[in-house]
């Protein structure tokens, strides 16, 4: 390996800034993507025909639309009809829309795997349908969907790098600019790769902990 043809001290603050933006993208997108997924899934399973069809259409559209294209439409396209977002906001919106669509699929599977007797029993105690969904169905469905949701979260970490394509200087973008300047693609991209690997590993660990934490004897293992 050749000597590094750039100064590490110059690189680190650049990557640090980029990493902060990457964290920002993920930490804002993930919770809203999660909520979005719940709303869409509940709408699909429990909504009236109109809501259910709407939610189904939503899922079809955002699963079918390449994420990069979606980001282009939001950031470059929408201004032409007078809707303008910053690059960061555009990226977050795109991620939430896409992440929510996929999350909703896992959650829908989770909801539909809960025996109908659970709803019946909840209603028979005087719960409204909404109360039953919140207190009985979702707590169980979420546990069943957790493996799928975790996958989506890991994907989100990785596809957050697409934000660079609409000028958000997250870590991949920051690294790319730096690498171009010093012609050090290999070292820098390897370094950034390790960053994502670290992030995904930590996420996997945290998810594992959560899974243990909310595990219930005999539940989901039938």
């Amino acid at each position: 390996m050749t000597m590094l043809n750039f100064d590490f001290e110059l690189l680190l603050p650049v990557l640090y800034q980029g990493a902060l933006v990457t964290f920002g993208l993920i930490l804002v997108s993930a919770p809203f993507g999660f909520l979005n997924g719940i709303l869409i899934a509940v709408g699909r399973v429990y909504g009236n025909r109109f809501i259910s069809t709407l939610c189904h259409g939503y899922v079809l559209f955002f699963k079918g639309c390449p994420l990069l294209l979606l980001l282009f439409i939001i950031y470059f396209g929408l201004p032409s009809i007078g809707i303008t977002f910053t690059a960061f906001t555009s990226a977050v919106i795109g991620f939430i829309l896409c992440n929510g669509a996929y999350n909703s699929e896992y959650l829908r599977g989770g909801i539909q795997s809960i025996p109908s007797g659970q709803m019946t029993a909840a209603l028979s105690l005087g719960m409204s349908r909404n109360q039953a969904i919140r207190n009985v169905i979702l707590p169980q469905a979420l546990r069943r969907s957790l493996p799928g949701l975790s996958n989506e979260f890991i994907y989100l970490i990785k596809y957050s790098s697409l934000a660079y394509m609409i000028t958000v200087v997250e870590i991949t973008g920051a690294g790319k600019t730096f690498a171009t300047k010093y012609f050090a693609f290999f070292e820098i991209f390897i370094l950034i790769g390790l960053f994502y690997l670290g992030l995904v590993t930590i996420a996997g660990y945290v998810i594992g902990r959560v899974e243990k934490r909310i595990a219930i004897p005999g539940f989901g293992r039938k």
Partner: protein
Amino acid sequence: MMTDEIILRVEDIHKRYGENEVLKGVSFDVQRGETKVFIGPSGTGKSTLLRCINQLTVPDSGYIWLNGEEVTHAGPRINQYRQKIGMVFQNFNLFDHLTALGNVEIALLRVKKMNRQEARKKALMELEQVGLSDKVNSYPAELSGGQAQRLSIARALAMDPEVILFDEPTSSLDPELTREVLEVMRRLARNGMTMLIVTHEMGFALSVANEILFMEHGLIVEKGPPSEIPTSQNFTRTRQFLGSFQD
């Protein structure tokens, strides 16, 4: 324990699923403190009838009255009526993600809007009633069938219902566990709980019921006090059914 006060009135209930007319006009009155037992061949609409009473299944026509208030066509008020009509299911339908305590507490907290201490106190009391004081923190998957069914009875009792509907509460239990559940139900009957029970446990039915109602093809075809079953003209068809049961 029975009084003359009519607590539940079921009036000319009809229900069809497509071509299949499941209930063809079922009517009866229930007095406070009474235990009525429904028997009859499979598929005659016993479960459907119970589910119509608390509107889990909406009848096509007919009326349900609880304490003189109409439960059919109640709109959103149905949730208030359902609190007063407990229900116990053949396969328990316990909330699998909650402990025994949680199963009893949840509706107290969310429906009755009790505070944590009140709900907990009430739930513990109900669990004690059904002999589950040592299982408070167990999850449904950790309970035997008999314990699970007693828990679901406690869950229903916690709402202080006016009447409890039991749909074959012991049909998925072996004889040993059946006995412990029937024991709890027997005690409820003695303490004046109003109960409508669908069951195949004839011994229990004969000793606890104030009235036996024999259903067939969506109608109540014979009914009367259990003491009349062996001899009365009223129970010819029932005797035939029970006879074939024993063979």
